[in-house]
């Protein structure tokens, strides 16, 4: 009974332990800014994770760098240029619009254009087709086929 009580009492403190691993930011404003910015950046180790959500060591280091840059009063733009000079545009989930990314940005529009073109051509062709007259015997044959299938 006594040991059970002890276990229960200890269990009460478990949530406290669970919280311990998370480093508390000394400045919640900067932390929020860092998380907002880092959500749009790619973690270079786990490439499908954002820099904000990754547990990779490099991501932790980079978050620390971002925090310290922000504490120095650097703007979001400065932080992004800090990262792109080191890791290239690859860190950005939203790549800039420039010659190498023209195909990336305009590709979907080009495909939409091709699709619209094909659609238009098909419609035009269909319209140009002469209407085939249907005579009575054909209708009767069709009706018979339908009835048989029922």
């Amino acid at each position: 009974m006594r040991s059970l009580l002890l276990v229960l009492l200890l269990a009460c403190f478990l949530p406290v332990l669970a919280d311990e691993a998370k480093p508390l930011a000394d400045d919640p404003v900067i932390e929020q800014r860092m998380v907002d910015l880092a959500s749009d950046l790619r973690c270079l180790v786990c490439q499908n994770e954002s820099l904000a959500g990754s547990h990779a060591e490099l991501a932790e280091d980079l978050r620390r760098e971002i925090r310290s840059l922000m504490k120095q009063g650097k703007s979001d733009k400065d932080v992004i240029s800090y990262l792109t000079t080191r890791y290239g545009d690859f860190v950005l989930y939203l790549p800039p619009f420039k010659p190498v990314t023209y195909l990336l940005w305009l590709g979907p529009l080009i495909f939409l254009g091709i699709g619209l073109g094909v659609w238009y051509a098909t419609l035009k062709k269909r319209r140009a087709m002469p209407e085939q007259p249907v005579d009575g015997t054909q209708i009767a044959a069709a009706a018979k086929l339908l009835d048989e299938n029922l």
Partner: protein
Amino acid sequence: MKRWLPLILFALLSVVLYVGLHLNPREVPSPFIGKPTPAFTLPTVEHPDKTFSPAQMQGKVWLLNVWAPWCVACRQEHESLLQIAQMGLVPIVGLNWKDKAREATTLLAQSGDPYLACAEDLSGRVGIDYGVTGTPETYVIDRLGIVRMKHIGPIDADAWEKKFMPLIKELNR
């Protein structure tokens, strides 16, 4: 022609996807190619009282090899680095990245030291300045201190012969 169009489109798509299968997403193009090496001054693993900075290599073609004792691929690479060092074609400078356990000194003493000098980047800041994403990574730097190539992953015989040798020979000319 019209009948074959779907087949042609399918074949084109297959080619694109096949090529895509063999691309390595780890090989992020480095923005430093053609740019000067970021400056740093760090103590060396071999002589903690001495420092290394890239400026000391001015006038030489050299390799900067980012590695760490905790990195398995780097251990695989170690043998090739020793061979390259023995050839005497190009000096290799090490950057011991985030070696928190401070194992580099013993490791290099035990298994051989291919480095002219090995800089100790304990905090990993210099690595970040070079855009290091993981170890090992090797940079080829020319006489003027310009980064000419970045190789991600261990240097194997194939990479050495096809990527490094021709470039180093050309830069040394």
